[in-house]
């Protein structure tokens, strides 16, 4: 692993100048390293961060990847690390023209990392440096506590997909001074609605009284208003103070909750575990935006390398070579989804739409096909619009907002189905639907979406931690429940309950077995039908490392 040569760095700097002129924005410095494929195999499980903490599961993955590599030598890896300065990796045998293309691709990624709002929590961070310090902390703990460090890592990683990325972002971006008066909140939202205020008419009267006070006494309105209130409800202040004391802390994800409330972790000899958990949590949070912007990020990079490469004077004579590589990257597969191709085409589509003024109500309300085809306001705002999309969207909102029938038609996209032809003994792929809504649904289904599981504080008592899973149409993977809950039990130091929803037919299905790694038999169609039928609330309880399941 070494820095790229001065010659190649000069190419990179040239790319930066041109990319900036085109409107991309990124930090001046960047580090580029030459690596071997073997280096990349080892970096893969660590999400390409060379300094990430050591963990045996990564070793397992490295060994497996190496085994695979022996049989199928390929380069299955990302190149850019979102850190400060951004780090990217390159093969040592790239010709200069290919480097030009890759550099543009990388610069667009860096631009994306440093401008997309979902990455806000990573904007100021030198994650490679932070990770190194975490890695050292874990190594130091490991020399002291041995394998128990790895158990804590494992158990925390078991719930690290439940970290609340959006709460984190929302905490970060709440401007100071916008918090409304809490006394007023309490009065209208809690006090009046908990038996002190009579019915709806009284409530409306109180609102009117408040508005009246504001009109007459502003800026003293609030104190005047509450002086009146106190006459009627002398107990108000005492109740408000009590409420304030009991007011719930800001929402916490499961890892945070355990760190703060687990009796086991509060014991002095177990304090070190919190450090490990914090490292796992921080690492997971760091990768959250990347998981959620695969289509957008790769699409953006492909969009820009195509745009910038073709206008780069330094690549004359290599257009054909470029076309070959680029076609491989950005072609739409006959069957399957290529995020590079999909994202890039959607950006191009949006640029064109915005240029013609079609992202507007006027265009949307046109019903006539011919008029729609003719519609062109020639706004010239296409580029500004895609920059805006790059800043404000993630994969879900990107696909959900912009995939429409125009786009699906223009790219001849369809939902491909697969069915068994038992006579020929083959799977048949067929065109299932060319409907944009169906296509959109199919893509959205495939996006990353961790389950919503939170601590149910009301039911958490007598040392039993109670978790509630909000059902979103899909059950949890049954085989994984046991080990995940085993880990939570360990970190909590007591029994753990999980309320979830499962299809009733599961009870008699082939996989009524809670062993980890057990994969279910494919059940018959009749059974699948039955499974659709009814949903049931199910409670799993992990106590003394034994899992029980009961239907409520």
């Amino acid at each position, binding site marked *: 692993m070494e820095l790229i040569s001065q010659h190649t760095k000069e190419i990179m700097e040239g790319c930066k100048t041109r990319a900036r002129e085109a409107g991309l924005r990124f930090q001046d410095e960047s580090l580029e390293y030459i690596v071997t494929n073997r280096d990349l195999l080892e970096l893969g499980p660590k999400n390409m961060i060379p300094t990430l903490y050591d963990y*045996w599961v990564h070793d397992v993955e490295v060994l*497996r990847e190496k085994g*695979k590599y022996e049989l*199928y030598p390929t380069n299955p890896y*990302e190149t850019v690390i979102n850190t400060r300065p951004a780090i990217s990796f390159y093969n040592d045998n790239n010709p200069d023209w290919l480097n030009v293309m890759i550099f543009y691709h990388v610069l667009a990624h860096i631009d994306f990392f440093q401008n997309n709002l979902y990455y806000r929590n990573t904007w100021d961070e030198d994650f490679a440096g932070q990770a190194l310090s975490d890695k050292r902390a874990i190594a130091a703990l490991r020399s002291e506590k041995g394998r128990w460090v790895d158990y804590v890592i494992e158990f925390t990683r078991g719930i690290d997909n439940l970290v609340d990325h959006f709460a984190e972002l929302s905490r970060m971006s709440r401007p100071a001074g916008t918090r409304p008066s809490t006394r007023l909140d309490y009065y209208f939202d809690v006090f009046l609605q908990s038996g002190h205020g009579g019915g709806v008419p009284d409530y409306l009267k109180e609102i009117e009284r408040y508005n009246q006070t504001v009109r007459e006494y502003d800026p003293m309105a609030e104190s005047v208003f509450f002086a009146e209130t106190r006459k009627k409800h002398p107990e108000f202040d005492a109740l408000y103070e009590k409420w304030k004391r009991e007011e719930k802390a800001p929402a916490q994800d499961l890892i945070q909750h355990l760190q703060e409330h687990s009796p086991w972790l509060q014991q002095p000899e177990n304090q070190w575990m919190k450090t490990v958990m914090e490292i796992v949590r921080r690492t997971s949070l760091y990768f959250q935006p990347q998981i959620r912007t695969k289509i957008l990020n790769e699409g953006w990079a492909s969009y820009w390398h195509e745009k910038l490469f073709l206008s780069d004077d330094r690549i004359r004579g290599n257009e054909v070579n470029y076309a070959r590589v680029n076609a491989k990257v950005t072609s739409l597969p006959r069957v399957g989804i290529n995020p590079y191709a999909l994202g890039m085409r959607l950006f191009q589509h949006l640029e064109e739409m915005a240029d013609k003024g079609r992202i507007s109500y006027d265009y949307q309300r046109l019903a006539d096909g011919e008029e729609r085809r003719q519609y062109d306001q020639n706004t010239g705002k296409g580029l500004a619009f895609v920059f805006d999309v790059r800043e404000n969207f993630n994969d879900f909102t990107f696909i959900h907002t912009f995939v429409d029938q125009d786009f699906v038609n223009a790219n001849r996209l369809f939902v491909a189905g697969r069915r068994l032809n038992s006579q020929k003994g*083959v799977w*048949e792929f067929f*065109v299932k639907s060319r409907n944009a809504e169906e296509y959109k649904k199919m893509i959205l289904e495939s996006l990353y979406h*961790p*389950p919503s599981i939170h601590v149910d504080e009301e039911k958490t008592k007598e040392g039993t931690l109670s978790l509630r899973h909000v059902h979103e149409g899909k059950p949890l993977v049954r085989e994984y429940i046991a080990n995940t809950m085993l880990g939570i039990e360990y970190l909590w130091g007591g029994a753990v309950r999980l309320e979830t929803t499962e299809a009733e037919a599961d009870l008699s299905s082939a996989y009524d077995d809670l062993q980890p790694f057990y994969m279910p038999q494919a059940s018959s169609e009749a059974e699948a039908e039955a499974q659709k039928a009814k949903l049931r609330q199910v409670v799993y309880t992990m106590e003394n490392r034994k899992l029980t399941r009961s239907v409520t």
Partner: protein
Amino acid sequence: MKIKPFSDYADFSELQEDSLPEVPASQRLASIGDLLERDSQREKDGFPRKIRIGRIVKPGRGLKEKIVIVPTTVEEKFIHDTREQEQEEPGQSGGSGEGDEGEVIGEAPVHGESESGQGGPGQGEGGEHEIEAGAYDLGRIISEQFELPNLKTKGRRRFLKKYSYELTDRHEGFGQLLDKKATLRKIIETNIGLDKIPDVYDIDLTQLLVSPEDSVYRILSREKDLESQALVFFVRDYSGSMWGKPTELVVAQHVLIYSWLMYQYERQVVTRFILHDTTAREVSDFYTYYSLKVAGGTKMESAYRLINEIVEADSLDRDYNIYVFHGSDGDDWERDGKTAIEQLRKLIGYCSRIGITLTPASMENMTTAERYIRDSSILEEHPQEIRLDTIDEDAADLRLIEGIRKLIS
């Protein structure tokens, strides 16, 4: 037709088409042993085991399948189960191009959808990988099942092998981590150069000029880790008297020892194969070692001398734990064994262990080799360095393992 999942799309594979460098087998990461050990400890700690040994199979022409044995594990989490949906509509995906709704556009076999990838040419080292992967697994099994002793020290000699990444390189201007001491030194240097520091014992900090270039940062670089490594000489008598059973026994035992060492040294094992009758020669691989036959006589001395020459020529004893395992029927033309013993004593000087297995046609009389070795009392003088075992040519596998224990423990 293959559907590529999202997760398989990544910059390197997409942007760099098809560069296919080779990975030398010797450089593979080596820790399956540790992982399995960790797993059994896990069970003792009251948690279920997590490691499974899996195989990746690449189908080839005819019967030439390539198999690689790899560990696998699953990180369990609460995640949504999408399989139910799949039962309803198996394998839904995206697509593009021509075709009316309902039209079949391709098909794929139901069975045989194994691990994919852009299948490389994949000839060359294949055979070797196969035996190595198999041997490792075998080594693990015989170590566990037959409770062979673990090597106490994993090598008093160390060898540079593995790498890790640390922020140890220095870089001026920008980087990962500010090296404050180096930066200060650099600032002082610059200012001395600029004549800003007339008296080094009385520095006026307010007068120093600080250039951005003076900031020294640490940046990522690759660091070498230390790891031990074994060098094993397998020596086989392939003279005319060694035919049939004795040869099979020797070779079978050598396979087991090889596996065991592979496991103990976590693949960091270099092997050299030596055949001898009255003269010794080195052959390049295990297959040749296994299959060659000649009709000559026997001189053990020739093999021992060859090893000594090889080790001396490259000073191999500095970097490796050296093992010598020798199989013969014990018939030697050199009746008194004088030169053989002389060469053996040289070997003892640097070897971690010499194991000699004799497989005589009859157990009734002591063979020439056994006699002169015992007469020299070398076994009593160096019990840690040299062992001798004599096995009946009709012995079963268990006896072979027992033999290994005798040679190694």
